[in-house]
């Protein structure tokens, strides 16, 4: 039924560059700044090379010739380059912050806006945690790569090339020897980095497992406590935490090996340089200053070599991040306004019609709804009754196009809902969902969600209908923050707020999904009274599990096997349709037994 979110595609090296190129539209507005960052980074690195070269010049020039005066221009030059390096360094970091943080912001805004408009069917498939990790971790990876990885990938390659040329120019046999020592280094580094990446992923996965355990142990704390299973839950967690430690230690060992090669390599190479250099000086092929410069230049080369492996891995990681982000950006917005659409005139209340409506969930072979025909006259209220899993909630979702029908159509005043602008459709149709979703915002903001223009009187009226005046007694009244980050409310209170949200502004079509299930008998009857007067002025479809809710409706539709199996007044259905009686009559049977 629900497919798990697709796994991130493995890094395969193919199309990596094209994945990175997806970033171009986001980088384009800041290309000037980014170019400045690149230039500053390159110049700063080249300025670094000046110090060793000047050192060599000092040894071979003024020192060898005992020329004190000759020292001054060289030292002056070293000073200029030293200051320039720091200044360029500042310029690089400063411009980087300006450009890539904006790029990150734009990318995240775009992603958020797009995700909000993807159909509910998409969100059914994707856990919000998956989306979050793409909008935070992956977007940050992109930002760090653009501002840092990409810059140094280019700069370090250039530095390596320049330094190697300089080394070869200074004394080519020794330069060649240095070049050759980097070969085994790269091979080893590549291999271990690959292993390290695999182990990192294992650690991440295990951390995810552990997080699941934590979430369940905290959210299910009542069950755990009630059954006294703290020990069991702890043992489970402990096993996973111990596995995580084992995996972490594996990773640490690989990382240690990697570090050690990079630590060992330059030191051994220095020994090679000393031997080769000494022999060369002895043979007269190299001056002492040349040897000094050689050693100093080599130290400049260290970081670029060291970082290359890491930077290549970074580029691959970023390419995968781009793929993951791209996957979301490429997802088609299937529920959308057709081109050239114009608002139609929809009466208030409107006539709602299901015409041979069918619906099949994506990836499923069995249709949930197969040919529903139902007409609700303006101002009429129809209750929808059916067994669990009969498709009641699905049917209600089709009116506001949370899902699009896969067969037949749904019309409002004769206009197919797919031919109405989404904004109009969703202002005409209001829904109170079974699970009362509240956001971490003020009560008022929670109520007015999509109707910021609602007046205080509208809000008061809605609160009265839903018997939700309790909000005035909250610490800050309508300004009190509720939801996960704020004050917690009882199930009944949440449900009344969700109802108030739906009736706010008296919509033309009202859809209520089991709106009174969490209320106590007393509150329920109060809400019913107030609701009746709202229902008289609007077209309504009410999903009902209880006779009391059914009584709000003028007619009742029984949904079974994807069709409307029976339609009529409650008392008639009760008398004539055994299946209906089975669904709703139990309470009365018991009541009779009691009295």
């Amino acid at each position, binding site marked *: 039924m*629900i497919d798990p979110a697709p796994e991130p595609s493995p890094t395969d090296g193919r199309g990596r560059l094209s994945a990175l190129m997806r970033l171009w539209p986001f980088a384009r507005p800041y290309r000037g700044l980014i170019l400045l960052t690149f230039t500053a980074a390159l110049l700063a690195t080249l300025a670094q090379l000046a110090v060793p070269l000047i*050192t060599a010049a000092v040894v071979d020039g*003024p*020192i060898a010739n005992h020329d004190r005066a000759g*020292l001054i221009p060289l030292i002056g030059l*070293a000073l200029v*380059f*030293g200051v320039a390096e720091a*200044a360029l*360094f500042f310029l690089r970091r*400063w411009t980087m*912050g300006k450009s890539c943080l904006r790029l990150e912001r734009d990318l995240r805004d775009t992603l*958020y806006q797009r995700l909000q408009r993807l159909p509910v069917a998409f969100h059914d498939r994707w856990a*919000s945690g998956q*989306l*979050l990790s793409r*909008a*935070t971790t992956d977007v940050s990876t992109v930002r760090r790569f653009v501002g840092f990885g990409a810059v140094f990938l280019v700069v370090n390659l250039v530095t390596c090339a320049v330094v190697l040329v300089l080394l070869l120019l200074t004394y080519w046999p020794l330069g060649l020897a240095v070049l050759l020592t980097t070969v085994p280094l790269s091979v080893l580094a590549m291999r271990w980095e690959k292993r390290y990446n695999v182990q990192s992923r294992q650690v991440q996965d295990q951390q995810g497992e*552990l*997080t699941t355990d934590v979430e369940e*142990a*905290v*959210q299910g*704390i*009542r*069950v755990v406590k009630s059954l*006294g299973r*703290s020990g069991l*839950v*702890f043992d489970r967690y402990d096993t996973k935490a111990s596995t995580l430690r084992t995996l972490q230690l594996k990773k*640490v060992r690989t990382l*240690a090996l990697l570090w050690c090669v990079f*630590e*060992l390599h330059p*030191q051994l190479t220095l*020994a090679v340089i000393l031997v080769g250099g*000494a022999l060369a000086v002895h043979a007269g092929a190299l001056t*002492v200053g040349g040897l*000094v410069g050689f050693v100093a230049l080599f130290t400049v080369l260290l970081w670029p070599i060291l970082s290359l492996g890491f930077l290549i891995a970074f580029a691959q990681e970023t390419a995968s991040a781009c793929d993951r982000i791209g996957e979301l950006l490429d997802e088609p917005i299937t529920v959308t306004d057709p081109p050239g659409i114009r608002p139609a005139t929809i009466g208030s209340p409107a006539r709602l019609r299901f015409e041979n409506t069918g619906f099949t969930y994506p990836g499923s072979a069995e249709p949930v709804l197969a040919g529903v025909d139902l007409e609700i006259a303006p101002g009429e209220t129809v209750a929808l009754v059916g*067994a*669990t899993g009969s498709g009641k909630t699905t049917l209600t979702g089709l009116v506001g196009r*949370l899902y699009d029908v896969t067969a037949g159509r749904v019309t409002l005043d004769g206009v197919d809902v797919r031919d109405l602008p989404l904004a109009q459709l969703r202002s005409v149709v209001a*829904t109170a969902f079974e699970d009362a*979703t509240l956001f971490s915002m*003020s009560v008022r*903001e929670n109520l007015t*969600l999509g109707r910021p223009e609602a007046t205080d009187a509208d809000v008061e009226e809605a609160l009265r209908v839903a018997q939700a005046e309790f909000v005035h007694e909250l610490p800050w009244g309508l300004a009190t923050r509720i939801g*996960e*980050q*704020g004050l917690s409310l009882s199930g009944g209170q949440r449900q009344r707020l969700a109802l108030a949200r739906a009736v706010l502004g008296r919509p033309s079509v009202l859809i209520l999904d089991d709106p009174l299930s969490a209320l*106590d*008998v*007393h509150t329920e009857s109060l809400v019913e009274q107030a609701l009746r007067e709202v229902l008289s002025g609007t077209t309504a479809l009410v999903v009902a599990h*209880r006779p009391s809710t059914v*009584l709000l409706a003028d007619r009742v539709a029984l949904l079974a096997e994807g069709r409307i199996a029976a339609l009529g007044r*409650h008392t008639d259905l009760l008398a004539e349709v055994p299946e209906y009686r089975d669904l709703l009559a*139990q309470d*009365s049977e018991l*009541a009779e037994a*009691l009295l």
Partner: protein
Amino acid sequence: MSAPTENWRGVATEDTEQLSTGAGIFLRARSRRLLGELLAPHHRALWGLLATIIVQNIAWLAGPFLIGVGIDVAVPALSHGDPGPLIWITAAMVGAALLDTALRYVFLTWSGRVGQAVLLTLRRRVFAHVQRLPLAFHERYTSGKTISRLTSDVEALAELLDEGLDNLLTALFSVVTIGVVLIVLDPPLGLIALLGFPALLWVARWFQRNSTAAYRRTRETIAALIVQFTETFGGIRAVQAFRREPRNDQLHAVLNEDNRRAQDRTFWLIAVFVPSVTLIGNLVTVAVLGVGALRVLDGDLAVGTLVSFLLYLRRFYDPLQDVAMFYNSYQSASAALEKLSGVLEEEPTVREPAEPVALPEAAGELTFDGARFGYGERTVLPGLDLHIPGGQTVALVGATGAGKSTLARLAARFYDPGEGEIRLDGVPLGRLADADLRRAVVMVTQESFLFSGTIADNIAFGRPQASRAEIEDAARAIGAHAFIDALPDGYDTDVRRRGGRLSAGQRQLVSFARAFLADPAVLILDEATSSLDVPSERLVQRALRTLLADRTALIIAHRLSTVEFADRVLVMDDGRIVEDGSPSDLVGGTGRFAGLHRAWADSLV
């Protein structure tokens, strides 16, 4: 930027978990204590690590020194036809390099082991502690907050242990040793090299002072962004159905821009700090080069020594740049440590007794003796006296807020009464071992939480050692077998995370089966049938008649149909029992229950 932020988030009690100002660099006493406790078992290892890193640094420092000696001694010796010094020095360089590398490996893996051991201990401790904390804590401290304590806060500390501490130790230690070496190598040049230090300290102080607030701000802005994101897509149906998208776009853009500004501030601080360190390093290098060259000219200094000196100088200033990065992870970690130690300081008020009274077979007789309970200032139960004989089925009715759930929770010892006591078979609940109490008393609530795993796993949660046959019997007994059997994998169907695949009613049936498998002497049902549709509720109620025959039961239900098979009905109002009798007596009477019942009967058909 237009200002659509006007108060949309609403007002809430200020988050008192915030790190107080000034707590940035020095840990508070309780954080220090926690850190001390965590590190205590590893004292020897820490000394060993310190020794390793000292020897390793010395081996590492030998390189530039030997190169200098090589240039000064071996090169001239070679020109006199003596390859001896060159061979020795090269051998020494290779030896030092190998020793350095080997010790480095030992240090990294060893410190990794210590770090991971500390983390595992911390994870176990916080997890077990959170499990022990009373329900009152979990209701006050939202699940989201508890989860982030156990995940992101522990990971902030892991990051510090993983990379930060190692980098810092190495950096600090290198700085100290290199400083000493520089002075020893050539005192005048060494003094020049150290001249940069006061400037360096001043820059570092500036950075530290400004970055504390800046980094804290980034953590706040990213958290706000994550909340907005998670809630939008967690409630996407409501978002789309109520055309919330444009407003959300605005709000997200503002939060995103806030985050950018906060980040930009830290980028700016680093953009000033790191180049300043470079500048100081470069100026010192130029001074050393100038003065050094003059001294070489005067014959006071060998060329090789100057070269080693310059090499050391580079190693002296480079690690200092990493300190900025370390400082950031240190700050997150100390904030995390502060919050973690706060949670660990929470008292598990509903405690297991030190010397429990054994109760292997409970008969299920419950007594409330002057039990008084309140949440904070508000008294819910002013003083309750109630006796329920073993085996009796009691229905609790009354309006919302009458204290029904509180009574039930006290009976399950989710809370302890402020005054008076509750006894099971004559033993106060507080004197029973948790294992005995939980075997005897089980509560099923309205929200039926399912754990990831199969349906069978979830039912077996009631009694982990139960066989498959027993699991299926439990499901059959409450009428859940039919729907489970119809699922593609039957009892082995994965419920996915938080039971996403099952309807609310089906989840409730599974949690019923779980409770029956536990086979308690006292069963408490708090709105446990509210999500069932009528046919399922009918099945459950039929099952209850037989299942409750030989146990004590406390049933809370809005729908009065449940009351029908109760032996006794208690009507509660304002924390007191106002009516007490058999269902037929009460229905026939003139009291509140008769009224409630009439209202309910009217609501049917």
